[in-house]
């Protein structure tokens, strides 16, 4: 009798192992399918690039725009346009923007690095502050935030219409979905 009980106990252990293996198999298949499904839809980098190009090339962006000829001068920044209101109006996602946030910083390359900040502005500042901690290295996957940093040499036009050499830093945050 003891032998039979021992056999049943042995069988139980044996079955538990087999069921666990079957569950592991199912989870693996599910995970692989989800992984390939998700990997096709990661557009955060593209979204950040499109947004940056939009700010730089659109007449409504931060580039200098000649209202008489309607010509945009890509690479020539109008410092009066570097303000949150301008950018919010130019690229609006409605009242609740959960799509993108950014910080734009313009620096003058002809001045010393300690005193070269010309102007900076936020786009969707509330979400920028919320998302910034989630964009750190080591975080990945859905629920985290991708941070795209970029710098480019530009000219900027000051209030007097004079141009100066500068560097434009864009820090764009896009949630991974």
């Amino acid at each position, binding site marked *: 009798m003891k032998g039979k009980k021992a056999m049943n106990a042995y069988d139980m252990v044996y079955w538990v192992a087999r069921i666990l293996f079957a569950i592991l198999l199912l989870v693996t298949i599910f995970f692989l399918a989800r992984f390939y499904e998700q990997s096709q839809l990661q557009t955060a980098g593209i979204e950040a690039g499109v*947004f940056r190009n*939009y700010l730089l090339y*659109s007449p*409504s962006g931060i580039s200098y725009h000649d209202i008489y000829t309607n010509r945009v001068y*890509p690479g020539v920044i109008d410092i009066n346009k570097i303000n949150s209101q301008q950018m919010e109006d130019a690229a*609006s996602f409605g009242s609740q923007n959960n*799509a993108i946030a950014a910080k734009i910083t313009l620096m003058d390359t002809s001045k010393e690095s300690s005193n070269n900040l010309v102007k900076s502005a936020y786009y969707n500042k509330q979400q920028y502050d919320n998302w910034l901690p989630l964009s750190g290295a080591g975080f990945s996957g859905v629920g985290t935030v991708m941070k795209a940093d970029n710098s480019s040499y530009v000219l900027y036009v000051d209030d007097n219409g004079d141009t100066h050499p500068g560097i434009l830093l864009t820090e764009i945050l896009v949630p991974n979905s």
Partner: protein
Amino acid sequence: MRLLRHKKGQVGGAESDVEAEIGKQLIELILAIVIGASAIAYAVSVGSNMRIMEVRSARDLALTIEAIEGSPGNMLFSYADGFGFQYKFSTNRVEVYLGNEPTDINSLNFFFFPQDSAISFIFPKDALGPPIGQQKTAIALKKSYPQFIFGASDLVFSVSNCEKADFKGSIDVLVFYSSTDDSLRNAVNDNFKSAVLSISYYDNPSGFEAAAKANPSAIIVEISLSQEESEIKIFSLTDKKANTIACTAQNLFNAKQVSSVVLGTSSKDNLNLINPSSLKFEIGSKADYNDAIQTIVKSIEAQMQ
């Protein structure tokens, strides 16, 4: 007798053990079948899930709209798909769904930023989908500052307004293609044929550049085909021939629903030739190469009539 009973009992115990073992094996077999079938069913559902394509189409179209909106100049874009989806545009989002009526459950949407005070968006009232009996949808996006018009494939860009080039005698066409993919090169060879055009092919940049400079009145077609991006540029060195051909080609592209974008006048080409008049087409997908190449041949022939 005692021994017999004992033996009988032993025999009976063995039978029940065998039955129990068979039962376990049956359960195991059934479980294995259930697990296998559900795994296959899940994999098939993921593989054939149009939901993924709806998400991709919605994002693709929304990002395309943002990219066009952000371009400094005017742009025409023909967006084609073969899934049979319906596309509905509202204030700042695109909805994609399969079937007749969108609902919150079966439509997928993605947001873009059209609330740009400098440009007015003109959306169609109804969803855009494939014509009856067809699967392919072509959505025309036209940004002509200060308007951004979303339309069906019959949105007229410049169909009847193409200027007629003054072609006299035979037309030399110099075709340069750069591709390491033999199947793509064969597609060019098979499709870029015409009974009335004198077509020369080059795959060497220096030879092509020399031939183009030696024959300034020729129509020059540069085809760059790769898995990443594909462009067709049409230009000529001396006059407006290229623009008239490109205009005709664009009309035919629209009519044939070839996914393409006119990238605008190019100021400098890859071969360092001066090109006073040129237009560049970016071809949407590999499947569209043949259509695009044949369309360009027809465009040149049409200008000869």
